[in-house]
């Protein structure tokens, strides 16, 4: 199978990840933070090591500020609803996933969209134009989940700092591919998935709060869920310290063990190497798709990226995806939970087809895919 659905979840995983999950389940999977026996303490140690690795990878000094979640969506909900208060105004980009849009709509806060299709300078002006005295939070992704579009998070972070806005970044599609340093980029909360380009398994994500989230700021974070976590059990309220303030219930230790192994693999290979490999696959696919008849490639001018969006002329993307699936190609059709991002690209009523690349894809796979696509386009079934 040619797997081009890595933006949804990466496949396959490094062998070390499968081994770490299995080893954890067999030997080290007590309930972390609950008991004093060896299995529980081993699980706590796995969590702690993973927190340390994540903090180190993303430029956060305090591992205590790494909060485990189920996935990026939960991380974003936790950050947005933890910081937001009634009456706040929130800024988001127009290429956001529903994991940003829906929680913000649910808060009932006013929000404004800024245009990520514009160049950096114009984008900054657009944000400044949309600031109001009630603006408190800016949320945006680093890398779109449907196209090569990126938000310049370093520049946006500086603008947020100057205007005293909390800056929340959705790094679901960039963590493990693009360099991110929370301190240098003035990011207050970084939300990520464990099962995408960090190569862990499904079931774990994280929100990393900046080092400033201590004391009163941490205590003031609204909790997203409440319950047991082995800390101060006789008290009715959640603890005031991170990460336990926001971690209620048993955490997925095997998934966290897998994430830890995934991070080690990403560090072993190196972000520049991963990124450069994805760029070479992207460039090849982009060039070939641009030359192919009956193909509409969106964002055709974007020379770098790891996600391509296209349509086959007069063919529903769902029908095309089915045919590709029948020929051993896994990719995703539709709107990819990002309605505004599709709208600005004018993909139409059915959305489009997305190729999202991963570190395990090869140049040979991209050539095979292009052959299959060419045959399908010529097929009488279309």
């Amino acid at each position: 199978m040619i797997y081009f659905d890595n933006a949804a979840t990466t496949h396959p995983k490094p062998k070390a990840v499968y081994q770490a999950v299995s080893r954890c389940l067999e030997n080290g999977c007590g309930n972390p933070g609950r008991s004093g026996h060896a299995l529980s303490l081993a699980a706590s140690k796995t969590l702690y090591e993973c927190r340390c690795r994540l903090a180190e990878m993303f430029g956060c000094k305090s591992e205590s500020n790494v909060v485990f979640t189920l996935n990026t969506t939960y991380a974003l909900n936790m950050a947005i609803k933890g910081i937001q208060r009634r009456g706040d105004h929130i800024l988001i980009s127009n290429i956001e996933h529903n994991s940003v849009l829906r929680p913000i709509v649910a808060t009932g806060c006013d929000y404004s969209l800024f245009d990520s299709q514009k160049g950096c300078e114009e984008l900054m002006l657009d944000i400044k134009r949309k600031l109001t005295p009630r603006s408190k939070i800016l949320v945006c992704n680093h890398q779109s989940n449907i196209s090569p579009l990126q938000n310049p998070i370093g520049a946006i972070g500086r603008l947020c700092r100057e205007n005293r806005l909390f800056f929340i970044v959705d790094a679901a599609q960039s963590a493990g591919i693009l360099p991110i340093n929370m301190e240098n980029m003035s990011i207050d909360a970084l939300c990520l998935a464990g099962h995408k380009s960090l190569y862990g398994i499904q079931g774990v994500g994280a929100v990393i709060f900046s080092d400033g989230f201590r004391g009163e700021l941490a205590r003031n974070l609204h909790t997203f869920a409440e319950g047991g976590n082995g800390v101060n059990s006789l008290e009715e309220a959640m603890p005031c310290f991170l990460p336990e303030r926001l971690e209620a219930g048993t955490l997925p230790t095997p998934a966290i063990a897998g994430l830890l192994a995934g991070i080690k693999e990403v560090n072993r290979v190196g972000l520049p190497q991963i990124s450069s490999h994805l760029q070479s696959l992207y460039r090849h696919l982009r060039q070939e798709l641009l030359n192919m008849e009956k193909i509409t490639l969106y964002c055709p001018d974007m020379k770098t990226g790891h996600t391509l969006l296209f349509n086959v002329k007069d063919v529903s993307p769902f029908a095309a995806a089915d045919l590709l699936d029948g020929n051993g190609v896994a990719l995703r059709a539709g709107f990819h939970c990002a309605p505004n991002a599709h709208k600005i690209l004018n993909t139409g009523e059915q959305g489009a087809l997305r190729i999202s690349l991963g570190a395990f894809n090869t140049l040979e796979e991209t050539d095979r895919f292009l052959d299959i696509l060419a045959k399908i386009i010529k097929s009488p079934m279309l």
Partner: protein
Amino acid sequence: MDKNKYALITLPTPTFAMAAAELLSRKGISARAVKVDALRGKGCGNGVELEKRYLLSARDILTRNNFPITETV
């Protein structure tokens, strides 16, 4: 725990306990994160266990690194 030989520094959460044990070990003081008896009125405690002779320096290191020590036993 042998109370004559070992001391306990309690901390609010398992993450603080893990971080404290790690920091102390890096400073050459052998310490391990443990679950401890229910703290007065709070329940389910966490802490680091270490040899009594290192208690004062360990306390000093943790305080200087902003660990919110709740009790020393």
